[in-house]
């Protein structure tokens, strides 16, 4: 019994990392049909945001609040990845709606650029760039309607971009002069240290559990609840669901599909950033950190059924628990007197990489019986 509980906890821990990583993807892929291979890199940006926030909170002014930096970084990571996502949507993905394979290739290109960007640009100036993007994209939307509709709006837009660029350069050099670690570009991995209240273990029903894992489960839980509430309860959530179901009809009824696309993509990318915070708690952060998760995330989305959050939740916990059962060879401890060939097979797969082999093989097998995942979208189109 205790063993089973142990396995369940471990499985939920693995699954919750998968879930928080796959949640943004499920929204972007499920609701918009866009394959975003740069999703892993948006996670990476979130992880680096955590690192930068941590260093900024070590400055003398913010030192008293150091313990709360992780909470702040969750919001910041959401904003950073969201802004990059919105930029991505506005510049590239918008041109490629309806051709998913092309989107896939273009976003892969973006992911390569982002990876090399964090390698060869000092993080301080990267932060400055993000700040200018943020101001440049959002300042024009805060202008009064009168200016927005005037013929000279483009000049206002232009000047706000100049203001944004100046602010970005200023903050970039400010950060780089005050924090030495951020002023040089480096391809080396960095480490995020959890604040003191998150270190150590807790005991739950007889099993010990690292607090960081618990924190990840909490982050995941909050993200899932927040996104479900947003989609089901808010006006924009309803518009997003409407566009998902029938884009042309929603357009006819006066929903701005363009805005819906931006919001959906922004939220999906922002969730990738939140996932990045979770990932940064698990190990060191490097330019390639996102690549380790991206395929697993896609498997979760495909297994769960596209466009269904419940499916995504079940699929990620299912994969998490199965990974623990296979990877730790737990079937053997449940049934110790197993016949030899069977126990040999289980031992063969009882490593992290071989467990992955088994899991992917099982998923492909599962898709043989349910090609559209656990909860398929219903439709009468021949293409469905």
């Amino acid at each position, binding site marked *: 019994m205790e063993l089973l509980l142990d396995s369940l906890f471990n499985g939920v821990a693995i699954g919750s990392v998968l879930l928080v990583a796959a949640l943004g993807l499920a929204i972007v892929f499920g609701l918009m049909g866009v394959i975003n291979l740069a999703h892993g890199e948006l996670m990476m940006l979130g992880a680096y945001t955590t690192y930068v926030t941590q260093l900024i909170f070590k400055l003398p002014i913010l030192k008293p609040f150091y313990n709360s930096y992780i909470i702040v970084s969750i919001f910041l990571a959401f904003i950073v990845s969201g802004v990059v996502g919105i930029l991505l949507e506005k510049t590239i993905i918008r041109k490629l709606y309806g051709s998913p394979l092309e989107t896939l290739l*273009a976003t*892969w290109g973006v992911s390569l650029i982002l990876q090399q960007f964090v390698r060869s640009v000092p993080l301080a100036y990267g932060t400055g760039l993000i700040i200018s993007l943020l101001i440049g994209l959002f300042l024009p939307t805060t202008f009064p309607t009168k200016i927005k509709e005037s013929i000279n709006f483009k000049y206002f837009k232009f000047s706000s971009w100049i203001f944004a660029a100046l602010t970005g350069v200023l903050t970039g050099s400010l950060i780089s002069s005050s924090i030495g670690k951020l002023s040089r570009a480096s391809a080396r991995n960095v480490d995020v240290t959890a604040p003191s209240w998150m270190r150590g273990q807790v005991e739950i029903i007889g099993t010990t559990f690292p607090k960081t894992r618990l924190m990840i489960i909490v982050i995941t839980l909050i993200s899932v609840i927040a996104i479900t509430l947003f989609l089901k309860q808010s006006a924009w959530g309803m518009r997003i669901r409407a566009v998902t179901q029938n884009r042309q009809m929603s357009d006819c009824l006066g929903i701005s599909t363009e805005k819906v696309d931006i919001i959906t993509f922004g939220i999906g990318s922002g969730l990738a950033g939140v996932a990045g915070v979770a990932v940064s708690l698990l190990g060191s952060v490097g330019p390639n950190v996102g690549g380790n998760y991206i395929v697993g995330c896609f498997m979760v989305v495909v297994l769960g059924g596209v466009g269904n959050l419940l499916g995504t939740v079940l699929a990620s916990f299912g994969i998490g628990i199965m990974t623990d059962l296979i990877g730790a060879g737990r079937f053997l401890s449940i049934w110790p007197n197993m016949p030899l060939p069977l126990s040999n097979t289980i031992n063969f797969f009882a490593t992290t*990489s071989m467990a992955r082999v088994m899991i*992917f093989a099982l*998923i*492909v097998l599962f898709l043989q019986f349910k090609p559209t995942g656990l909860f398929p979208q219903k439709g009468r189109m021949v293409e469905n």
Partner: protein
Amino acid sequence: MSLSKIKFDKKIVLSFWIILIALIIAAPTLLPVFRLNLLGRYLSLSIVALGVDLIWGYTGLLSLGQGIFFALGGYCAAMYLQITSSSEFPNNIPEFFALYGVEKLPFFWEPFRSPFFTFFAIWIIPALVAGLIGFLVFRNRIKGVYFSILTQASLLVFFNFFNGQQKLINGTNGLKTDVTQLFGQMVGSESMQRIFFWITAILVIAAWFFAKWVVKGRFGNILIGIRDDEPRVRFTGYNPVIFKTIIFSIAGGLAGISGALYTVQSGIVSPQFMTVPFSIEMVIWVAVGGRGTLLGAILGAVFINYAKSLVSEALPASWMFIQGGLFILVVTALPEGVLGWIQGDGPRNLLQRYGLKRKIETYPSLEVNNKEGNNE
């Protein structure tokens, strides 16, 4: 009008071939050994690019897992080479086994003692694996991006398997081939490398003709039909599953040959051939060269890889930016690829834009009416 439809003078075609063959024969004397070896490797990569073009350019299946078949071909060749040159090692098995305390050759190595078996295994094993994966996926009508994701997942399955099994195939270290012997000669030696270059060049041409033959005629038409409107092909009475499986396993076989040639010229095969980025790179070679144009796939593979090695030598950090930019650029601005653009309306449109060529009036009567309308 496509290039293939333009009737070339027979003399031009003949002289093209003569120059090409002369270049291939003369290449070893013209180029330094290092560059020749690189060119040979890139030529062998163009064979896998041909396969990608067949499945993506002609059939519309974007596989992100061609690395599986590429590496399988490479492993087949490397296993044969390792086993034939293992006579001086303990137990007559390849050297690395001793590191892991393995004394008996794993059973699946046994057939690779025979050069005859290996010769066929290099392309038949990848083709069979591709056929199996393809059949399982296509049977369920999984297509589009789902197919891409599943092939990528399969790639990871194979990568993790080969990476994790030290005792069977030396895991992450891979199998070295450059110090092994083939027919009494060192594989890594200069003379052998020259022969491999010639073999590669001949096989690239052979593969090109084979691919041309595949996409010609009714079979090729059905492939293009599947790409453009699969339900319609199905409703017309064809079973797309069979055609897709066949073309996917052909591409797998080509990838296997390519992998074997690449392995003997680079001197090692390792699970690195099965990483996700490498397989996506194969797609970009075809995309830049021109999907749906076989020559474009070959040229794309050779030129992009050459550019990669030149840029990486000069500015190591910038290649990732350039490659990322290429992905974005080719998809948004040049979806037909370079050769597709040249063969299509690209040059004419460019000339027209700058007024160097007269615009063709598609509907002369409409244009006339419009002008009259404006006058009123």
